[in-house]
């Protein structure tokens, strides 16, 4: 790891100031992506601004049909929040299956979303739930936020402070984890709510998380696992690597979609 300077922020404003006044400052939340990346010398921030101790950025709040999750809330805290499980089991289950227990104790929803790994789980949930990503200076819809592999609409130095979404009528997530890394080979989040049906796919797309219009339409008129069994998944859009080729991933997407709909009930 290259040298770096560590700072601990106690408020979102302080974090943004500290990162902004550094040469090449970066936020560090759980560090579960950033530290491995720095160890490989693929990232070399001059300054790290720790946002894990900012109380205002932590916690899960359910108010009527609106859910707000602080960006620095860990995966374990999301998975274990009973008030969230009661209204949106899909996201609770998803959080409880990210990586392993030690990763879930440190990794945060904000870090996961900001990183937008093409195999990360949360991007699928946020896209399917039509979530809003709230930063220190604006609100971005999930549809506009995820712009490609490891790419987001965030500007340099912009801090995600929370995520919010409307409680869906039904939701579920089904993931086929890579047996070594536990990241998704394909993960499908289905949600049915006021805006109709939304289906988001992670792990499989060569351009990161995406919505599947064909499955959304099919499920809109017939909410059943059968409705997506023969969905047309474009192999040309799929990742193809040593873990699985495009045809394999396209099939996994259909299977995960079927399982997710069945689990949502």
């Amino acid at each position, binding site marked *: *790891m*290259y*040298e*770096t*300077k*560590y700072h*601990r922020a106690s408020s979102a404003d302080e974090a943004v100031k500290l990162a902004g006044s550094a040469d090449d400052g970066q936020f*560090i939340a759980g*560090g*579960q992506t950033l*530290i*491995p990346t*720095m*160890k*490989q010398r693929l990232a070399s921030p001059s300054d*790290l601004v*720790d946002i*894990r101790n900012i109380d205002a950025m932590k916690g899960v709040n359910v108010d009527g049909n609106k859910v707000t999750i602080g960006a620095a809330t860990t995966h*374990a805290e999301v998975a*274990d929040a009973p008030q969230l499980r009661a209204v949106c089991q899909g996201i609770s289950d998803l959080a409880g299956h990210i*990586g*392993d*227990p*030690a*990763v879930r*104790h*440190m990794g945060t929803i904000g870090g996961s979303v900001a990183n937008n790994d093409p195999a990360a789980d949360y991007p699928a949930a946020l896209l399917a739930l039509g979530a809003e990503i709230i930063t220190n200076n604006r609100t971005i819809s999930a549809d506009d936020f995820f712009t490609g592999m490891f790419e987001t609409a965030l500007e340099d130095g912009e801090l995600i402070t929370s995520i919010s979404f409307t409680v869906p009528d039904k939701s579920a997530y089904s993931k086929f984890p890579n047996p*070594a*890394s*536990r990241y998704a080979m394909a993960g499908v989040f289905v949600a049915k709510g006021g805006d109709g049906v939304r289906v988001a796919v992670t792990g499989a797309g060569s351009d990161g998380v995406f919505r599947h219009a064909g499955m959304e339409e099919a499920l809109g008129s017939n909410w059943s696992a059968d409705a997506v069994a023969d969905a047309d998944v474009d192999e040309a859009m799929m990742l193809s690597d040593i873990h699985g080729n495009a045809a394999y991933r396209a099939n996994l997407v259909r299977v995960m979609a079927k399982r997710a709909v069945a689990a949502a009930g």
Partner: protein
Amino acid sequence: MTTVSMTVNGKEVSADVEDRTLLVDYIRENLKLTGTHVGCDTSQCGACVVHVDGKAVKACTMLAAQAAGSEVVTIEGLANGGDLHPVQAAFHEHHGLQCGFCTPGMIMTAVDMIERAKASGQKLDEATIRSELEGNICRCTGYHNIVRAIEAAAG
């Protein structure tokens, strides 16, 4: 250099380290507590698991500076003098190790898993134990006796 202070196994400790120092290096190099192991450089093997403020974390994927002010427990902090911690005793009894390289991380993960299960009133069955061990890799045992030891310790 920054002075990083924390509590490790109940003792207040302090050392001047570079900001990029990993918690695992702080524990091994500065405190000379070498029970915490490093088995990979990809955050996947779990040999380095310690407890920070009561939670199992990978000490190779945390900066010492991030843990400043925290309560840390390492494998050396479990036994009470000559009396092994019940999970250590169960690993001994059920032969939950061969070379022993993964064992500190396995035991720290097991203690954390048992405490969380107790707190939530959940019974630790074999399937749950196996999925909770996803972040801990063992090259020797085939996991069978590790799972048995944890089942026994969980009661």
